[in-house]
């Protein structure tokens, strides 16, 4: 699909990551001025340099001051924010253990980035968006793990489920400002992280990947561009009556019981 985002300013957190990069490229290809926001400033600068009229922004979304400084930098460059994509998030790699043994420090790290970070970044961006009165879009990247719980990642499951419901709460609070909030729940997406866990030859769960794929009707991991396409639609003028929805882009994984 093609959409007209000409002149819109879109902030993408986690913009230098695998899915974030695909989102940034997709929005830029449809006319948006993209802010590549990432805690990895070098990665953000490298991508922004490759996009027309883009800005790189080093932001730690789990820090209130960093989120506000980032938004101030965006406003100083473009004067407005039209679209915020809360894409930044982390899951545990080193602590694949059940809840009874899950370390508190790792729990705090994941919830602080995934859930608190979505709140802090949204709040920072919403102040100028509401004040400007021109409406806008917020797209929260949740996860299928926030719809169907999966083992050995309890804080991620909890934080992503919270993001799905936070999306609804935001939608009913912000709709009358013309600001529409929706979520996308990606399924298993091929990236460096999932390659290390599942899809690589020496992936942590490599031997079980075939069994895992039987639960996904499409029979394959998703592609970052397939997530970016859903972001493009929800950010586009065409989605002007879509609010409070959670769209899973998961190859049918959560459509039902597949086996």
């Amino acid at each position, binding site marked *: 699909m093609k959409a007209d985002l000409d002149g819109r300013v879109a902030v993408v957190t986690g913009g230098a990551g695998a899915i974030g990069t695909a989102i940034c490229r997709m929005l830029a290809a449809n006319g948006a001025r993209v802010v590549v926001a990432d805690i990895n400033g070098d990665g953000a600068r490298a991508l922004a340099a490759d996009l027309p009229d883009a800005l790189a922004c080093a932001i730690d979304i789990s820090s209130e001051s960093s989120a506000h400084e980032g938004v101030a930098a965006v406003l100083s460059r473009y004067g407005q924010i039209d679209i915020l994509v809360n894409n930044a998030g982390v899951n545990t790699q080193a602590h694949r253990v059940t809840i009874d043994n899950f370390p508190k420090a790792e729990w705090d790290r994941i919830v602080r980035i995934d859930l608190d970070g979505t709140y802090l970044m949204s709040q920072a961006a919403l102040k100028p968006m509401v004040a400007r009165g021109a409406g806008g879009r917020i797209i929260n990247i949740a996860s299928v793990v926030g719809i169907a719980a999966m083992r050995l990642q309890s804080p991620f499951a909890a934080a992503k489920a919270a993001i799905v419901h936070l999306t609804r709460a935001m939608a009913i609070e912000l709709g009358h400002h013309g600001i529409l909030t929706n979520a996308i729940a990606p399924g298993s997406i091929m990236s460096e992280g999932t390659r290390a866990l599942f899809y690589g030859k020496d992936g942590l769960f490599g031997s079980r990947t075939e069994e895992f794929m039987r639960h996904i009707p499409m029979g394959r991991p998703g592609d970052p561009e397939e997530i970016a396409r859903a972001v493009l639609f929800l950010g586009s003028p065409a989605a002007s*009556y879509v609010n409070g929805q959670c769209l899973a882009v998961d190859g049918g994984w959560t*459509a039902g019981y597949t086996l």
Partner: protein
Amino acid sequence: MQIDLSGKTARIAGADHPISAALGDRLTGCGARLVPAGPADVLILSAPLLEAAGFDWDGLADTARTEGAAMKARGGGRIVFLLSASAGLPVRRQPDLSARMAGLGVLMRTLAMSLAPEVAVNAMGAGAIGGDALCSGTAEMIGHASVGRAGTVREACDVALFLCDPDNGYLTGQLLCADGGWGAGYGRSF
């Protein structure tokens, strides 16, 4: 929004209403050739949006199953149901319609599983859509949609069209509502 359906055929089966009629024009505008019957690359299964009585619901489900199986055998395609948002949240004033919508919503999800990976199956759920006379939903729903207005036929079509996109190869089994936030929660302050 524009999707590329050049060289594709599209067929709209089921109920006639303003959304199905407008969607036909949009599909044509994206390059598809509308066919009245037989195989198609994009199959729209249109449910009545206001009244359950007098419609052949089993016939629509049969069409979904038989045409879906044929589409899978041909190697690919898109099926998009046009439903009411009551598929996801039942409406007290529309009990029969809500039950039919929930049934078709589950059919959509089971077909998404059984027709993958060749065919993607999704549904648009229409909230309060229309002008003075609504073609979907009830007047009461408008005040509970946080955007504070009814949606337009075009806005409902936009959602359906997105689900028809041949590029969306990983999106299946989804009910995506055009309801302005109606189904998300209590849009009013008590």
